[in-house]
């Protein structure tokens, strides 16, 4: 078997190439992110977390939602080491991660991680939120090795 590749620093994708769109169900999440406040969609009736935000609670069908402020920390559930910037195909080391969010059991975010070499990212690694300004004045939650 071949040796693991030495990739070097895991970089965030440049914010200026990232766009999002919102709808009334998802906008509170992104408005909170603008204020550098990490939240997740929680059912106002039964407390179940769901991400992405959606109109109904899949557990109890309630439309009531809460947007609690989360600690902003989490754990890497899985990751991929990518080596090309999707915007232009140029060599670029970035690591998409699936993050289990502390304080919101069952809720995950997909983001980039930085603050370490790509080859050092691992499942179970603790991370803390880091905010990236993207197009149209929105702010994207990414993560840094804690």
């Amino acid at each position, binding site marked *: *078997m071949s040796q693991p590749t030495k990739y070097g620093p895991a970089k965030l994708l440049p914010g200026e190439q*990232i766009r*999002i769109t919102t709808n009334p169900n998802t906008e509170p999440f992104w408005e909170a992110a603008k204020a550098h406040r990490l939240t997740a969609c929680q059912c106002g009736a039964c407390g179940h977390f769901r991400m*992405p935000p959606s109109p109904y609670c899949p557990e109890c069908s309630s439309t009531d939602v809460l947007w609690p402020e989360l600690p902003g920390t989490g754990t890497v559930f*899985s*990751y991929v080491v990518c080596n090309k910037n999707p915007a232009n195909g140029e060599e670029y080391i970035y690591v*998409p991660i*699936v993050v289990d969010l502390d304080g919101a059991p069952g809720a995950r975010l*997909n983001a980039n991680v930085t603050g370490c070499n790509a080859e050092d990212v691992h*499942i179970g690694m603790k991370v803390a939120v880091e905010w990236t300004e993207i197009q149209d004045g929105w702010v994207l939650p990414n993560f840094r090795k804690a």
Partner: protein
Amino acid sequence: MAWANQDKAAIVGVGATDYYVRGKSWPRTINDMAGEAILKACADAGISIKDIDGFSYYSTAGAGYLDKFDTASLMETLGMPNVSFSATLTSGGGGCPGAIGLATAGLVNEDCKYAVTVMALQQLPQHRLGVVFGASAPSPENSFLQPSGLVGPGHLMSMLTRRHMHLYGTTQDAFGEIVMATRANAHNRPKAVRKAPLSKEEYDASVMLADPLRRLDFCLETDGAVAVITTTMDRAKDCRHKPAVVHACAHGGQREWGRAFAWMGMPDPHFASSGHKFTADRVWAQSGLKAHDMDVALIYDHFSPMVLMQLEDYGFCEKGEGNDYVLSGKIRYDAASQGGVNGGVPVNTHGGNLNEAYIIGMTHIVEGVEQVRGTAINQIKDAEFALVSGGPASLPVSSLILRSA
């Protein structure tokens, strides 16, 4: 309990165009290729195009990634006098073999007499799948995925693969074995895109596109079309070939898989799976059969690790044991004995999406038909049962068991 529609319908005709490397089919149009596949399937069945009165699509009637089939347009160019069944499964390639169950429903319901299932794929530069995912501003839902740079299906599949490696100690050697074992089945196939035998050294040297997945773990990108015709058993007896009997068929899945790698919210053990456990359990319940009753398994192989995870979900081995199962040679086809190796069930005797061609699952149905007819190029001796799977992708995924008549 046996499936209510067990052995009531059969696939009686298969047809395909040449398989072109992505983008090379131009100046043919997508309806030109779809028409060729449908007309060839009619000729194979020994019926007239005028007999076709049903359309059973999957992938939301998609023709590739951006084009759509339209029954009226196909009637207009091919001249079917009337149509009395026109329906599709939703989502994408996961529904491919499930479309045969949909056809069966239309036939048993006496809505139609001969139903065609067709897929055509043409990737002109603006239609490239990675571009489809990555070019425009994401939907509100996809705004929780795409900004992370997870823009191609290989990125997404890699995320599931990494979790499987973490939980079960699965190795890239197993992915290499899947590619090499199925490549070995393509060398004698005139239409296969990748025929040359593949060594482990060549596999290990393949460029890493989305670590842990290499270029050779990704399926081909192919242009072309494939069509199959399903009819009732009484009509099937009058067709040219031995019927490939629809013995069991299921589509769907469970919420824990849901949108799958477009979501990434799947709890363990669903995350590091193929999402096929639900339909696998259904076809086994419908048929009273188990994985090792299959003579051949045609397993949707858009990415090599998803073959391993389907082997687990269908019960060819226990969950988490796919690595050892694959590395013990059990997915290989042995030409000398026309059977399996080391007690295994041969997988993708046609070379699969990884080596022969990728027409979003249809080539697996064609191979299943040829195996139970007894006319396959890499024939399994006395093949009675063939498993065909579709997906893994956003639900529905689907499963089909064909039986020799």
